């Protein structure tokens, strides 16, 4: 350890660079050389890249653990001595990326800096660990695909961007990873781009993520403005200024930006402008980003469609890593979210509602991947529920366990689909659970791991899912986030938003309902796929011709342009679905066991029984969420204990009811009650089957709206602007041309007449007298008026228009100097006579303003920078 620390000092921990570089090199090599290197070289490159970075991650974790032990300190408060660990951070700076200007024109440097602490240490392990397993699985799942090298290039690039997201030390680097992950999911979902629905699904995913990124961008510039920092330490230090109560600190929603409505708009001016605290604004903006990435209520529509990508992609991206990015962001910035109870309530409610909505949809889905997709959305809802009610550790623990069992479920589904693909090539039907059934006999290993993962997800006692979901429901019931300076502000009777007491129980109830539905649909999925008899094709010895045709078919399996190949007639008996090859089942087994036993890392109520006080995860994450947990108000000690027992019982009952009902419907009654229910309520069934028609709702409102807007924009551009500026002016010039052509009619007389008119005009001009003069202001109020010269002109000045002229006769004086006191005005008259004896006159009023007052400090707009006034 000593030499390791010497090699990689904590302050400049370049091992992180190694962890990041490996997947990047893997992606680059596979991407550029892949086609020529051949399948096994690509597989080797991809696996070694991720394997090495996993090993490096483990080494980093050990070093981190060692550093944490070093920072151990005994703290005795009110008699109770308990161990406290410092918030250790191994950081590495690559180079300074750019420099932006913060408030008061300070320049905020943004560096490509990476740091590993307790929170993202764990995440790093999940990403590289589960990522490695999925790479192994994918190397055999995809080996018949022609674009093998492109798949692994994208997969490695995805791991690189995910690591970038987790290890980033400031928000912009996280944002780079955030969008990089969005890009890779776009590329991977649209991997088989020859089929339009896949490409459309990829585009939908990218744009939904992009809407989320908009939220993150808004959050970022709010943070820069109020705290002047973007990296985690800077933000934590300056988080106070987010809740500053002075008016300049509030984000003015109406009137927008804090100005005043003048003139006719004054009626829109509300009595007191609607303002929200900066913390709420930042919280909501960042939460919008999280909903985009972690598929919550407003922006979850892209996840079910993302199933168009290959199954390992769904496993890696849409189960284990990418979708949890939202939770990671909230956990990372917990000290900001906690500052505004309103945001916490919004997060909790969104999470609960998403869980319930997704669970209801999953009930009726027939496509196995769609069921798992909606179950992911609902489990994410649980995580947000946990994080929203202040239980950051519980929420994060659910991320940890969910990664295992959801990845196992997806990979299990993948191996089932892989087996079905042997004879059913149409993507739709090969994933439809109605064609499966009874696979228990043919694919024992897949069945075992799938069952284990299902037990974990439905919350079978002592499994991973049970502990993590129970913890979340308990904390949701009990947790009550409170504004950190609530007391101080209440003293200054500043209105502070406090979460109403009924929120906890309602959220708990929704959570339990969702848990029941989860149990039901997961067991239904398990039964439909593995129990009963096989409905895919008649199992038996395939006749001779079927075998020959089957052989020929195998080699060009999975070819891209597989739309032209024929559909096997399934009435012929065929080989039974074979168990997946070893490379696919090993990851399944590992993930299956992990999902069963991962729970003991944070066993919730067992802590009391087994008095494991320094259980790794709880204490491990404690320093990270120190400030956040301080703001969560928990009931007294004994009430806490009774509530905990009550929620655990509730969670257990949820599991029992759901699983029992599913068992009764599908095993006992062989699905009869389900069919009866569908006949009874066909409308509702169809509605739920079409995913509550949320997609259609979005299409009609948002997308058609944007469509119409761009339609008008384009037509305005062509119709009005182009018309007015280009064509109309051309028309004008042409019209003017024709007007003047009338005069050119070739007749000499007409020309002569025009000439005469011109001559007459000139004559008049020369004859008429013109009195013109120029006023020049000199110093100290005296003005010089100089008359314009003319043919044979003579001048006469009247220093004061009313009074008599300066000289009787018309002299040659072309200038006059007049002095005017401050604040007075004087009228000077000029009279001229021209050669023809015609006279003309003109008056000049000279006004001298009082000395201009000293320029005052004008306030440009109200939005003064936080610390005191600033000149504009």
């Amino acid at each position, binding site marked *: 350890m000593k030499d390791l620390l010497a090699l990689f000092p904590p302050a400049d921990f370049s091992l992180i660079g190694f962890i990041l570089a490996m997947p990047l090199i893997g992606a680059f090599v596979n991407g550029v050389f892949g086609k020529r290197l051949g399948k096994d070289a690509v597989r080797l490159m991809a696996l070694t890249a991720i394997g090495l970075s996993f090993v490096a991650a483990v080494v980093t974790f050990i070093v981190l653990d060692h550093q944490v032990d070093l920072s151990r300190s005994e703290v005795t408060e009110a008699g109770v001595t308990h161990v406290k660990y410092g918030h250790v951070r191994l950081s590495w700076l690559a180079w300074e990326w750019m420099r932006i200007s913060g408030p008061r024109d300070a320049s905020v440097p943004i560096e490509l800096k990476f740091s590993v602490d307790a929170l993202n240490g764990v995440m790093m392990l999940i990403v590289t660990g589960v990522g490695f397993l999925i790479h192994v699985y994918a190397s055999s799942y995809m080996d018949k695909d022609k674009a093998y090298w492109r798949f692994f290039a994208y997969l490695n690039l995805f791991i690189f961007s995910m690591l970038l997201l987790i290890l980033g030390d400031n928000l912009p680097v996280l944002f780079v990873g955030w969008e990089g992950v969005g890009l890779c999911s776009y590329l991977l979902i649209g991997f088989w781009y020859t089929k339009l629905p896949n490409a459309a699904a990829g585009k939908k995913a990218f744009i939904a993520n992009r809407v989320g990124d908009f939220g993150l961008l808004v959050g970022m510039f709010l943070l820069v403005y109020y705290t002047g920092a973007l990296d985690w330490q800077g933000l934590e230090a300056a988080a106070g200024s987010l809740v500053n109560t002075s008016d300049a600190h509030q984000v003015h929603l109406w009137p927008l930006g804090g100005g005043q409505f003048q003139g006719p708009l004054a009626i829109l001016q509300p009595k007191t402008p609607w303002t929200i605290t900066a913390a709420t604004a930042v919280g909501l903006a960042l939460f919008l980003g999280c909903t985009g990435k972690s598929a919550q209520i407003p922006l979850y529509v892209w996840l079910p469609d993302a199933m168009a990508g290959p199954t390992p992609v769904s496993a890696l991206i849409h189960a284990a890593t990418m979708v949890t990015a939202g939770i990671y962001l909230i956990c990372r910035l917990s000290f900001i979210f906690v500052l505004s109870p309103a945001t916490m309530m919004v997060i909790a409610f969104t999470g609960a509602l998403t869980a319930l909505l997704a669970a209801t949809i999953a009930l009726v889905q027939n496509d196995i991947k769609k069921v798992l997709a909606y179950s992911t959305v609902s489990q994410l809802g649980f995580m947000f529920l946990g994080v929203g009610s202040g239980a950051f550790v519980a929420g994060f623990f659910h991320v940890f366990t969910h990664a295992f069992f959801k990845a196992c479920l997806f990979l299990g589904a993948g191996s089932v689909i892989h087996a079905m693909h042997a004879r059913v090539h149409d993507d739709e039907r090969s994933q439809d659970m109605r064609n499966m059934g009874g696979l228990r006999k043919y694919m024992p290993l897949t069945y075992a791991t799938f069952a284990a993962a299902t037990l974990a997800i439905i919350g079978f006692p002592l499994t991973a899912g049970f502990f993590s979901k129970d913890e979340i429901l308990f904390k949701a019931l009990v947790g009550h986030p409170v504004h950190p300076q609530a007391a101080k502000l209440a003293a200054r009777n500043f209105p502070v938003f406090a979460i109403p007491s009924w929120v906890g129980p309602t959220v708990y109830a929704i959570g339990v309902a969702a848990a029941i539905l989860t149990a039901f649909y997961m067991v239904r999925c398990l039964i439909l796929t593995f129990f009963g008899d096989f409905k895919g094709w008649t199992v038996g010895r395939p006749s001779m011709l079927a075998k020959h045709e089957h052989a020929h078919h195998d080699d060009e399996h999975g070819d891209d342009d597989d739309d032209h190949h024929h559909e096997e007639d399934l009435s012929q008996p065929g080989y039974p679905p074979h168990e997946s090859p070893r490379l696919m089942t090993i990851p399944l087994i590992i993930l299956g066991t992990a999902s069963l036993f991962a729970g003991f890392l944070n066993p919730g109520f067992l802590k009391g029984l087994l008095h494991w006080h320094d259980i790794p995860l709880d204490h491990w994450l404690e320093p990270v969420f120190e400030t956040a947990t301080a703001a969560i108000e928990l009931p007294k000690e004994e009430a806490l204990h009774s509530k905990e027992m009550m929620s655990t019982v509730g969670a257990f009952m949820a599991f029992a009811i759901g699983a029992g009902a599913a068992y009764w419907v599908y095993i006992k009654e062989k699905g009869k009650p389900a069919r009866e229910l569908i006949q009874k309520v066909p409308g509702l069934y169809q509605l739920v089957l079409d995913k509550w028609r949320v997609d259609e709702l979005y299409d009609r409102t948002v997308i058609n709206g944007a469509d119409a807007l761009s339609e008008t924009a384009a037509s305005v551009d062509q119709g009005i602007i182009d018309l007015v500026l280009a064509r109309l002016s051309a028309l004008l010039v042409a019209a003017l041309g024709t007007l003047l052509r009338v005069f*050119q*009619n*070739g007749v000499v007389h007409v020309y002569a007449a025009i000439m*005469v008119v011109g001559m007459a005009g000139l004559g008049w001009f020369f004859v008429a007298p013109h009195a013109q003069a120029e006023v020049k202001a000199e110093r100290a109020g005296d003005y010089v008026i100089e008359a314009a010269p003319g043919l044979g002109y003579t001048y006469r000045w009247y220093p004061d228009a009313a009074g008599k002229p300066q000289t009787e006769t018309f002299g040659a004086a072309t200038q006059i100097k007049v002095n005017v006191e401050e604040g007075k005005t004087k009228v000077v008259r000029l009279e001229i006579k021209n050669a023809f004896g015609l006279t003309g006159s003109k008056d000049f009023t000279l006004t001298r303003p009082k000395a201009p007052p000293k320029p005052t400090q004008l306030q440009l707009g109200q939005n003064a920078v936080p610390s005191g006034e600033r000149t504009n």
Partner: protein
Amino acid sequence: MIPVEYYVALSAILFTVGGVGFLVRRNVLVALMSIEVMLNAVNLALVAFNRSHTDAHTGQVFAFFLIAAEAAEVAVGLAIVLSLFRVRRTVRSDEADLLKN
């Protein structure tokens, strides 16, 4: 003796009559003749003014050269009228509008 102003007034009147004639009549020949009238009016004015400033003959010399120029002008004018006539068979000025837009 006759004050110079009368002569100048007469030449002004003659000049105006010549101008009006030139503008009104559409016959090119008459136009040329009215130019003649205008030029003679100018000569008259020149000689009249010279009469009142008798220290030099500038007015008269100028008039003399004016006559020379006038002769040249008429020669060329009439030549043009002839060729116009050959082309258009008319001396009406408003028919010669080849330069129409």
